[in-house]
């Protein structure tokens, strides 16, 4: 439950702020100078704060478009990511966002136009070549769409830049905003799934698998490109049976050949994030499983990971044509 709203004084009168505050009119509003006053102090307990996070409305000054980490993306040469929000509505135990920031508050930047200017500049710096912009790295792209109207701004923007492609990564079912827009070929909405047991144990607040499949179906039927992200694959004693059941459930509803892309990756976190989240949740079985450090990344021991990926890959390729399958190779 959202507890309160912090607003930077300088953007209190921004039209997007006013519209947000109108929507959040039941919550106490606290004016601040800069979001860092609330978001950055060290003496915050992420786990406690996550129970009743606040929304911080702020202005982003720089770093609107950032080069994507190596191995991120769908094979394009020019990959960037951007975050109009930091932190997520959901509370997935495996997510690096738990260890990313001091605060669990949701930070929303309202100066979309500055993101747009930077997107145009970046796209223009790679003329005639496709440039991918990924949203959903530091937040869920669609979970807050009814409030932020993110898609209403960014989808027409991408459509207006000839060489821009955008992936919206989400676990949300909030597709109503998109369904009001004209489908765009260069926008892919990628839905993440983990198997039913991992979903039940680790994805707090995330809509059910069935509801997300339904959201995908509605987008596909409306002519939108949709991707499937089977990431992270989490180890547990029944992961094979559960993973197969997940695929059966998805492809009973959706046409596999109409998928834009399917990717797969096992659970992994950087060493720092792993250390932070396992301290935050010392009682969490996921972090008590055997893990190994490889190249700064904590993940399953090589043999276990290989076995998991091989199994899941084989299962995926029984449903999906190979050309739209993209393994996530973080080992480099």
């Amino acid at each position, binding site marked *: 439950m959202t*507890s309160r709203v912090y607003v930077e004084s300088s953007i209190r009168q921004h039209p997007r702020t006013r519209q947000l505050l109108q929507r959040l009119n039941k919550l106490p509003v606290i004016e601040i100078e800069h979001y860092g006053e609330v978001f950055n*102090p060290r003496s915050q*307990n992420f786990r*406690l704060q996550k*129970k009743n996070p606040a929304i911080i409305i702020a202005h982003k000054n720089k770093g609107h478009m950032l080069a994507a980490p190596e191995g991120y993306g769908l094979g394009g040469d020019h990959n960037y990511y951007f975050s109009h929000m930091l932190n997520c509505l959901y509370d997935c135990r495996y997510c690096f966002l738990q260890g990313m920031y001091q605060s669990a508050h949701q930070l929303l930047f309202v100066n979309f136009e500055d993101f747009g200017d930077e997107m145009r500049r970046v796209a223009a710096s790679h003329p005639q070549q496709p440039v991918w912009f990924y949203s959903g790295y530091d937040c869920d792209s669609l979970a807050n769409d009814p409030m932020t109207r993110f898609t209403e701004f960014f989808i027409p923007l991408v459509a207006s830049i000839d060489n821009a492609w955008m992936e919206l990564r989400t676990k949300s079912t909030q597709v109503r905003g998109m369904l009001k827009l004209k489908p765009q070929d260069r926008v892919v909405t990628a839905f993440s799934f983990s198997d039913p*047991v991992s979903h039940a*144990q680790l994805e707090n607040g995330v809509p059910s698998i069935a509801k997300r499949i339904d959201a995908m179906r509605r987008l596909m039927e409306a002519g939108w490109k949709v991707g499937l992200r089977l990431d992270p694959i989490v180890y547990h004693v029944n992961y094979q049976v559960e993973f197969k059941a997940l695929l059966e459930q998805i492809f009973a509803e959706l046409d596999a050949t109409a998928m834009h892309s399917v990717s797969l990756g096992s659970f992994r976190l950087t060493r720092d994030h792993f250390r932070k989240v396992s301290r935050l949740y010392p009682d969490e*079985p996921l972090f*008590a499983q055997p893990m190994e450090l490889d190249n700064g990344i904590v993940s399953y021991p090589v043999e276990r990971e290989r076995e998991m990926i091989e199994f899941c890959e084989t299962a995926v390729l029984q449903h999906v044509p190979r050309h739209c399958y993209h393994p996530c190779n973080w080992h480099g």
Partner: protein
Amino acid sequence: MLIWVSALHCEAKPIIDFYRLKKSHDDTAFDHYRGNGMACIISGTGKIASSAACAWIAARYGDEASIAWINLGIAGAAQHDIGSIFSLHQVIDADDGHRYYPAPASAVELDGSACMTLSLPSDDYSEEYLFDMEASGFMYATLRFSSAELVKSLKIVSDNQREKIGRDRQRVSDLVHQHIDSIERQASSLMALNDEVAARSPGLEYWQQLTSMAHFSQTQQNRLRVLWRYLMNRDFDAVTLMQQFEEHSPRAIIKHLEQLSYRDSEGLRP
């Protein structure tokens, strides 16, 4: 552990009475009351006194797994009625401009307000803030020992532009007392959060016993702490676990605990 911090005895008296706290005669630095998993300290007036009292009592209860704090006191306001109670959501130090934000962590919240902490008494009130003389010192000190979710400052208006009763001790106590039920609800929800944090710390008693069973290197101790914390949080019995070690070498102990953790975690059961 919940610690109440008030500048004056008359502000704390309703709490001391309500929770039947007993005066400690062991200490002379500050008047200090305790009982029921709580302590209450009378800091004296001003932000430095408040900081000093918080630091002193935090050291006094340094063995506690986690400490929650409530600063309870009176404040001045331009328009609010005498007796209105607020939970501060922003504290501004008038001298250095530093701002502090107690973080909301429970659904049970009183009306919020910003508060400006002054070094000297003043009745030149502005509409935007409450005014007091301790909150910034309280925040400055307590945020070094606890997270912002475990720190609250509750202020009751004693003075406004129409009336001033802040110097009448009995009436100050009466103002606090009239809100004792909602103050108690704040305290209960804060203590529940604090218990949640404290429960995740491994029992120090057993930890010391465990680490004395073999000569662990620092790296081994770090690994041991992670495993021990997990198993204790999963309700394994410390004494039974320690009896299970067949070999008392650091490696063997860690390996044994690892096997238990791996087995326990493979189903992802909560």
